[in-house]
């Protein structure tokens, strides 16, 4: 393949992506109304592309049994079968259909990453805002505990915990959530510390409001913008962490399809110049980029920059 062809293909991909994003935005604008519609109309194409990709991933994850031509764990052909009409992306080292496993992998990897990030945010945000609102010894105790946890490199810490508690999906979610909650805690606390000194928080305290109301009604709405942006980034990190752990053999356990372990299992093919094992990695990369496009847009909006 010459350089010219390569450039033409790349240009085609970019143009195709832009066109798809443009159409997707038009559809979203037509379907929404009010403030949502106004903000969507101002959304950059990158953000629309990101939203389109995320929507596609979600669709694939939800509809996996309908879309996949074969079962997730079924051995349907020979090992390392090449791409063909029956098996679009060939088969893996056990003769399972690659395309089907890629589709089921979306469900497992994305679903677990979403659950983990959500859990990390619930715990981290609540504790962070609580520490900022109450202050004093509680803040000190929580923050020092978090400092200790953060002092241990997260991958090693996760490996340690997984070795202790075993590798089920539940422990995987809990362990990564615990590790990531410390980062969320830091951000939530830092953001909230700028908010709790405002007069309206003082007014709420003087009104006799309880801690929960202060945290969730008074502080959280004002801290939401940076936290939403952080959610997007954190989701990517969690995603990568799960894939990394799976690659190391401590994440999602076989025979469950998972993009990280799929790369490892079929890594031998790379030596033969076959791109198939890189497709799951590409799926991870594409989602990471898509999420970051959307996050950038939200950050931009939250920072109040108009031009």
């Amino acid at each position, binding site marked *: 393949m010459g350089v010219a062809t390569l450039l033409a293909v790349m240009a085609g991909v970019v143009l195709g992506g832009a066109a798809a994003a443009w159409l997707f935005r038009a559809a979203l604008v037509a379907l929404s109304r009010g403030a949502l519609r106004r903000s969507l109309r101002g959304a950059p194409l990158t953000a629309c592309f990101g939203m389109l990709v995320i929507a596609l991933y979600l669709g694939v994850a939800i509809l996996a049994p309908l879309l996949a031509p074969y079962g997730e764990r079924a051995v349907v052909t020979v090992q390392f079968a090449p791409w063909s009409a029956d098996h679009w992306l060939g088969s893996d080292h056990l003769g399972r259909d690659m395309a089907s496993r890629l589709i089921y992998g979306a469900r497992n990897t994305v679903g677990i990453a979403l659950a983990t990030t959500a859990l990390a945010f619930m715990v981290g945000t609540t504790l962070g805002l609580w520490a900022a609102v109450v202050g004093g010894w509680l803040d000190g105790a929580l923050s020092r505990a978090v400092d200790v946890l953060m002092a241990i490199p997260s991958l090693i810490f996760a490996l340690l915990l997984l070795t202790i508690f075993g590798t089920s999906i539940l422990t995987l979610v809990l362990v990564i959530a615990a590790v990531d909650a410390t980062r969320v805690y830091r951000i939530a606390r830092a953001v909230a510390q700028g908010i709790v000194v*405002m*007069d*309206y928080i*003082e*007014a*709420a*305290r*003087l*009104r*006799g*409001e309880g801690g929960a109301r202060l945290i969730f009604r*008074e502080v959280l*709405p*004002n801290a*939401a913008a940076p936290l939403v942006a952080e959610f997007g980034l954190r989701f990517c990190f969690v995603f990568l962490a799960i894939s990394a752990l799976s690659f190391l053999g401590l994440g999602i356990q076989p025979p469950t399809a998972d993009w990280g372990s799929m790369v490892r299992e079929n890594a031998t093919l790379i030596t033969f110049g076959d791109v198939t094992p890189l497709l799951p990695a590409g799926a991870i990369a594409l989602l990471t980029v898509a999420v970051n496009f959307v996050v950038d847009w939200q950050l931009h909006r939250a920072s109040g920059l*108009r*031009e």
Partner: protein
Amino acid sequence: MARAELLRMRDIRIEGRAGDAWLPIIDGVDMTLHRGEVLGLIGESGAGKSTLGLAAMGHVRDGCRIAGGAISFDGIDLRAAPDATRRRLRGRRIAYVAQSAAASFNPAHRLIDQYCEAPVRHGVMTRAEAEADAVDLYARMQLPEPDRIGWRFPHQVSGGQLQRAMTAMAMACRPDLIIFDEPTTALDVTTQIEVLAAIRGIVAQFGTAAIYITHDLAVVAQMADRIKVLLRGREVEEAPTRAMLAAPRAEYTRSLWAVRTLERAARPPSEGGAVVSVRDVSAGYGGVDVLRGVSFDIHPRRTVAVVGESGSGKSTAARVITGLLAPRTGRVLFDGRPLAPDHRKRTRDDLRQVQMIYQSADTALNPKHTLREIIGRPAQMYLGLRGRALTERVRALLALIELEPDAHIDRRPSELSGGQKQRVGIARALAAEPRVILCDEVTSALDQIVQEGILRLLDRLQGEFDLAYMFITHDLATVRAIADSVVVMQHGAVVEAGPRDAVFAPPHAPYTARLLASVPEMDPDWLGRLLDRRDAGQG
């Protein structure tokens, strides 16, 4: 006038972006300034004063654009000139002094480093010359220890000193024109005098032309040779200071004048004793006492004004009453019964009885809540209102503060003007149906016409709901307008207290006398006379 023309602005139009549309901010204003002349720009907030002032440098804020008109500075067309030319002019021939010196200085650098930056950068002086010059200017600006103060960091000097250091810095290149954007608005009256005197002195010494932007008429009367009145981006009138003060032509200008004459007769203390009594309270932060043995009473249906310069402990007294700061010694009594020193230990009813209105409505209202929630919450908490009853209550409160209920109930604070926000703060306090409201500098961030509206509203509500007010302020015009009794504080202690007319009439305590003398008057000769008297007193 024989002096040469320095700045000439013709038919200036400046627009600001609102979504996709461009709305006019300045709509066809002419402005001419001669060398050595001081022009006062006045008008309420949002009139376009600062925008016009910045346009004199050929600059507009982000999201704004100059849509039309000509700006010529000493023969240079600022609109047509390339950026490099404009950059060379700024700092060197045109300087700008912002309202908040504290926010304009870089807190990480010493004052003198920031002073030297412009002259060295523009190649006017070497670093050593600039430093010597800074010391000289600091002395002329009557800063204490002029040969040492420059080596301090911004947080190590007071607000008034910082504002003078800022003016000295603007003077560093001996510019032809300085734009002062409300340089004394954030300062209290006694500090303001020092800064005004210093600015006036230095502008006269170097024959610098100046544009002085303010909403305080009495201040502009001291500073300006000519006054231009702006209203919603248009010129109302322009005249030499004395002529305008003697005979304002436009109706709007006369209404600006009228605000300062708002005054109500002081009422004697009401029967039946005080509703809140502060008894021998000493309190502070860390090891430092901010309040030392303070006692005063708040009487039902009356207004007590607590006055004093910043740092005198006025706001700390309010924090002790609300229970945000526990006193070290002394007590706060409510109806003769002691209140718990910590607000967390007070009963819900005790909390309800004492409400607070804050100086800055911007930070006092949660920006993510609608007015329904902001005003409704106290009524919901304290009075147990729900559903339709709550909505009706919020609507009634909005009507009370003269905001149209249907149009405003679901708005957020960012969709309101400064005066409207302050009214919402009042409604939130009223929603608790308190007996006492503490007002902490509630009008000092507002311009005079809005101030008058708020004061009239507070006065009316006091009559309707039998409220007692504690009014913390440094503006004696406000005191004259609504207070029945006055407490004068200095360095955390009460120096004088009593009925308003008694405190305002001689003989005064020395500090009260100084405070009263510091309130600017409309007479353009007032500052000169005051300084002469002071010199005579010292000499």
